[in-house]
């Protein structure tokens, strides 16, 4: 059986690999069952925290770039962001979650990570 539509590439393996990465990042179903419900909830909550953390970080970087933060403010923001990052790593370890698992599709803005 021959289809009119054809796929032309010299690198099929590479494209399959990349497409699989996009599938992994955006699961079609939430895998929730009694055994993993705690992890599932933690994943959801940590994803939202990660989103907020990234937004805070982006805003801080914009202000650094604009030169609108004093020396003391940079020190304080740095400390806050560092502590937040460390806490997130700690929580991810507790629930066995990898960075790429904390992802969100932000529509036209793309993926969170």
């Amino acid at each position, binding site marked *: 059986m021959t289809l009119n539509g054809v796929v032309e590439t010299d*690198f099929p393996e590479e494209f399959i690999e990349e497409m699989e990465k996009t599938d992994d990042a955006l699961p079609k179903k939430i895998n929730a069952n009694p055994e993993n419900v705690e992890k599932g909830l933690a994943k959801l909550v940590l994803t939202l925290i990660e989103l907020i953390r990234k937004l805070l970080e982006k805003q801080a970087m914009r202000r650094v770039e604009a030169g609108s933060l004093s020396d003391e403010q940079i020190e304080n923001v740095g400390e806050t962001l560092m502590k937040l990052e460390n806490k997130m790593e700690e929580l991810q370890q507790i629930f066995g979650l990898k960075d790429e698992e904390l992802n969100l599709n932000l529509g036209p803005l793309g993926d969170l990570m």
Partner: protein
Amino acid sequence: MELYIYGIIDSSGRMVESIRGLEGADVYNIPYCDIGVVVSKFTKSPTQNTTKDCVLAHEEVIERLMEYFTVLPVRFHTVFDGRDGVVSLMQSYYKDFRDNLDRLRNKVEFGIKVIWPSDKMKEHIINTYKKNNKKVSVPGDSSNKRFMRDKFEKHKLDEDFQKKADKFINVMDMFFSKFVAEKKLNRLRTENLLLDAVYLVEKDKQANFKEAFEHIKSAHQGFKFLLSGPWPAYNFVTLPKKSDSLKDSGQEDLFDKVIQHRDLVGADKI
């Protein structure tokens, strides 16, 4: 009796030639005003029938239809419970189907994916920074400030990475856009997958579009390209409202943009 739907066509007439669909059943048209729904009788439950052969049979019917009609390809495994359900669907959606058929007449879909050497791009950005001796505006040596400095460097790197990606995508898209009616672009779905796009191309501009693709391909050494098509215009069928008949039948995604059947035969994976 269940009916398996292949697509909506811009004709209320009979099939021009005999087409066999899933389970070897005769494919026929159910007319509604000046358009029609192409179906065949269906006995198995959808879960029993998801095989590569079925997927290919579905696709082949659509492509055969495309030789004679404008087709709104329906998602693989769309099954309705009898003729009444199909007619009810047409009553709810007639105007939308008509609009889509007019918009998609004589057009086909092409997919383009591009992988770029992201590591080399990053290396180039870092080297440019070093060469230009750009200073990062976070002075001081406390651990908090070092943290902020590292973050800021990463932020600038990401920003330049995105800008570079946009630059390449704009150049490529500009070439392709000369020959397309509509497009949908996804940029940087992964760090390596620079572009994942679908283009709606008029049938008589297919050769120009492919030529533009070859031109872009040869002008970007070190990049990897994939061209797929011509496909039915799965990604360009738009339905603004959901009908109760669809909700009741559990077929809310009549025109699935994920294109399940292409996925199953492997084409959509690449």
